[in-house]
């Protein structure tokens, strides 16, 4: 994606903002915006991301918002945060500890301070540090004044007041005026990192096209924040004078770029996949966090032959998609773990009737309702094994927001070419996070046009379950004269499709379904980083790509024999994967679950895969993986793998109830 030559240990946990200030060109910076859920932090973060992308930095983001829609103001559990890591080198993660924390109220400071690097910079709005807000955040005294922030740099001033002042000419009441506080802060951040304001101006003008007053007020707040940085002599308690920090553009492959979230990329990939299959797309969905965004995106793309159907429940969403596939469209459904559980019986119907179907699972944390807004990779067993009967189904996983585009196309291809449901795994992190994306050219993807049978396939006869060389049965649209037939979930005769319970037929049909999926053509597994043999292979799948990649890169730089292997095709697995793993003395499998892919690898290849697990709803940090890798090279036996502890530096914050 970008130049990675400049990766040095300096983006490790020891660098401080003060060190950074001494440098004219920074390698990378991590900024976290935190405030009340009503403060517009996700918006601020999103716009800062856009402006950063336009400045030519590589970046990765981590949005973290409360499960409550409108949590009571000022409370610890109502804090919403957005972290961005950007740099002049390739960025693969949302960053470990932040260099800069913007805290819009006491609760935001309290829940995020533990994450800040020693010597990091706190920017705080003193106007929001009222007695009432301090009480709500369970502070006994004002941390901005009691010296408890001594080990950090602090910029504290009354952002609330300055915002009210800036928007005064627009005649807004105090309450409305304060809603522009986030724009004032964004303006300051844009100054601090030398980002252009123009894209935000344009965005505000188009967002508030119908209320130019509001647009102007927000622009005034943004400009005032920027001007404040430019003119005021900003100094913290340690006497440091803050200057602008410049992060050079990253060296990237030439081309046209945009930012994309995983949910957008999946939606666009599905549209592309349907076009490559030359099929209209039918999307059946039901609202569920964090998968709804895909339904929202596709509902606006009707001109691409997309029909979206918000069904009465998860089951109806998948059933309608199966019905549409039966009628000759590309049926797609999407959900998260609990919704996938509801769809499971119908997915079995899709497997039994051998119809194309794409199921997107944006994984979240925990069983049952679990952690709806947090991320986990714990639906792998559900995807690979979680159905009644022997019900094999291909499973593929996206590793990043931009990767989700290609993976969605791949899911469509397998579904159409092999007449089978396919599950595409993403997760809450991939769905919500944004990263720069080199806009692909649709012409670069090979088409896989769907074929519909319209004449008999066995001399004069038509056999609905006669398979082709790939093991796929023919797709016949109802409405086709001469090919009338019935399908259903009951076991059927291996060629005629008529009900057939006989033992030998069921044996053959079970084998046929299994063989079809196991023989799906899957590209050989490549090594993402490092040698093809060696001491340690770190094997990942899904959204752990970024942290594993960086950790392996650093370990290689330290001289360790370690490679990164990242698996897209979870089922069936790439044919060469077993042999590849045998070329390493050790296999470490970091996962945001209790070791699910590890089980699959052990089962399939009899390889001694060691799990490294993390189930705190937080992604892996680079440093955590680096430490886990180092244990293979420390000369101590038996300390490898295990569980990564809850990390106070990370989002989601650990302190929510005081």
């Amino acid at each position, binding site marked *: 994606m970008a130049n990675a030559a400049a990766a040095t240990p300096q983006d490790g946990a020891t660098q401080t903002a003060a060190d950074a200030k001494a440098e004219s060109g920074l390698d990378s910076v991590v900024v976290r915006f935190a405030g009340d859920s009503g403060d517009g932090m996700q918006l601020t973060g999103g716009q800062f991301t856009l402006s950063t992308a336009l400045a030519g930095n590589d970046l990765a983001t981590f949005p973290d918002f409360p499960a409550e829609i409108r949590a009571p103001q000022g409370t610890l559990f109502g804090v919403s945060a957005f972290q961005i890591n950007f740099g002049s080198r390739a960025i693969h993660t949302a960053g470990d500890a932040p260099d800069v924390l913007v805290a819009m109220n006491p609760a935001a400071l309290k829940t995020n301070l533990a994450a800040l690097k020693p010597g990091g910079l706190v920017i705080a709005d003193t106007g929001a540090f009222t007695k009432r807000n301090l009480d709500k955040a369970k502070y006994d005294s004002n941390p901005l004044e009691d010296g408890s922030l001594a080990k950090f740099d602090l910029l504290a001033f009354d952002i609330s007041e300055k915002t009210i002042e800036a928007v005064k000419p627009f005649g807004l009441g105090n309450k409305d005026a304060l809603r522009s506080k986030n724009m004032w802060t964004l303006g300051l951040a844009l100054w601090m990192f030398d980002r252009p304001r123009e894209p935000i101006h344009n965005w505000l003008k188009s967002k508030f096209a119908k209320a130019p007053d509001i647009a102007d007020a927000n622009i005034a707040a943004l400009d005032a924040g920027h001007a404040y940085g430019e003119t005021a002599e900003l100094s913290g308690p340690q006497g440091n004078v803050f200057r602008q920090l410049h992060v050079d553009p990253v060296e990237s492959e030439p081309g046209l770029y945009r*930012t994309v979230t995983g949910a957008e990329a999946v939606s666009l990939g599905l549209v592309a996949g349907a076009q490559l299959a030359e099929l209209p797309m039918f999307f059946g969905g039901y609202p569920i966090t964090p998968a709804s965004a895909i339904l929202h995106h596709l509902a606006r793309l009707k001109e691409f032959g997309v029909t979206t159907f918000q069904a009465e429940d998860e089951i109806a969403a998948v059933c309608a998609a199966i019905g549409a596939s039966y009628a000759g469209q590309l049926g797609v459904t999407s959900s998260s773990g609990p919704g996938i559980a509801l769809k499971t019986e*119908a997915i079995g119907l899709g497997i039994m*009737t051998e119809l194309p179907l794409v199921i997107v699972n944006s994984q979240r944390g925990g069983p049952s309702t679990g952690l709806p807004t947090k991320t986990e990779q714990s639906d792998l067993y559900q995807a690979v094994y979680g159905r009644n009967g022997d019900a094999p189904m291909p499973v593929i996983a996206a590793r990043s927001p931009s990767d989700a585009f290609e993976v969605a196309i791949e899911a469509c291809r397998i579904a159409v070419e092999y007449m089978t449901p396919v599950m595409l795994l993403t997760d809450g992190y991939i769905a919500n996070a944004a990263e720069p994306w080199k806009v692909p050219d649709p012409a670069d993807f090979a088409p896989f046009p769907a074929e519909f049978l319209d004449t008999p396939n066995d001399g004069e006869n038509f056999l609905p379950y006669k398979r082709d060389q790939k093991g796929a049965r023919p797709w016949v649209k109802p409405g086709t*004269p001469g090919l009338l037939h019935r399908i*259903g979930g009951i076991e059927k005769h291996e060629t005629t499709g008529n009900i057939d319970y006989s033992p030998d037929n069921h044996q053959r049909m079970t084998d046929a379904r299994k063989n079809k999926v196991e023989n799906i053509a899957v590209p050989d597994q490549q090594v993402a980083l490092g040698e093809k043999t060696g001491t340690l292979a770190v094997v990942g799948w899904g959204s752990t790509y970024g942290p594993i990649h960086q950790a392996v890169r650093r370990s290689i730089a330290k001289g360790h024999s370690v490679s990164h292997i990242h698996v897209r095709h979870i089922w069936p697995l790439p044919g060469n994967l077993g042999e590849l793993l045998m070329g390493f003395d050790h296999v470490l499998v970091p996962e945001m679950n209790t070791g699910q892919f590890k089980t699959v690898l052990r089962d399939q290849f009899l390889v001694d895969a060691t799990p490294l697990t993390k189930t705190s709803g937080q992604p892996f940090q680079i440093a955590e993986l680096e430490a886990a890798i180092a244990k293979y090279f420390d000369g101590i036996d038996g300390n490898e793998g295990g569980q990564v502890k809850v990390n106070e530096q990370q989002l989601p914050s650990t302190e929510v109830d005081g």
Partner: protein
Amino acid sequence: MNAPVKIETTLKDWETDQEVRWCPGCGDYAILKAVQRTLPQLGADPAKTVFISGIGCSSRFPYYMESYGFHTIHGRAPAVATGVKLANPELDIWLVTGDGDGLSIGGNHLMHVLRRNVNMQIMLFNNEIYGLTKGQASPTSREGTRSPSSPLGSVDHPAKPAAFALGAGARFVGRGFDVSKHLPDVLKAAHAHQGAAFIEIFQNCIVYNKDVFDDFAAPKGAEDRQLWLEDGKPMLFAGETKGIALDRDALELKVVDVADGDWEAAGVLVHDVTKRQVAHMLVDMPFGPFPMALGVLYDDPRPTFESAVIAEREQASAGKEANLAKLLAKGQTWTVSGTAQDPI
């Protein structure tokens, strides 16, 4: 949209080579024949006809119809059928369900297919029992029904399928019973209706719930307890000696005697299939004091779901180019020039 071109077929053309596996004497045989007899009369095209079912005895139906067919999963046929219809509105869909499939496990989907008004015929075979699982009480079983799962008699209050359908917003509600010679007429009216047409068909399960409908659906002798409704005709029954009138004080229906054929004098109502409030009273008439209301109880079409979805899609697409390359490059973009080093 249903079968615009009339195709000539015979009853035999609609039979498959599959052995019918319902119990000997099951009411389903009569319904199957009624449907196979009706479709040629409609000029239906077997290639464009799709029978979609859930799970249960009734749901075996598609295997016996020489058309397209999809035997889906328990309760979900309305959802599958909705997807089929949205993908290809040209198809003529017949949904086959039962009291357990349609009102118990699939009640939610039945409600939504009706309120959305997806154009299809929905035949609910009501035998007031779970047949395929060997005789447990169903959501339409009368209180006190003794079954393997309710050996002391069921205690839950039964649902009324036609009342459920009307309450869910159905724009066509019809009723018939397995061996009735009028059943094809109800099916034809349902087929002519544009939108979701709900038909409750009382069906005799001779093994687990034998003859529970005999009071009004016995092959012979129950005619006096049948009220066959016809649009524009007075609501008369029992050889036109009795009729249904409105008790204007109580705002409910009542049975009145008709002397010498003078139904007007007796205040007998004239059936108007578009009167929703009357339909509500007809589906709710307690059988016993009242006859069983049969035929077309309600028929008042409104635009179908699929036509609205298509219109919305066309409107939203008008003047827009489906250019994927442009879509991918939408929003704020930036261009990087120069040479990449070590791209990953």
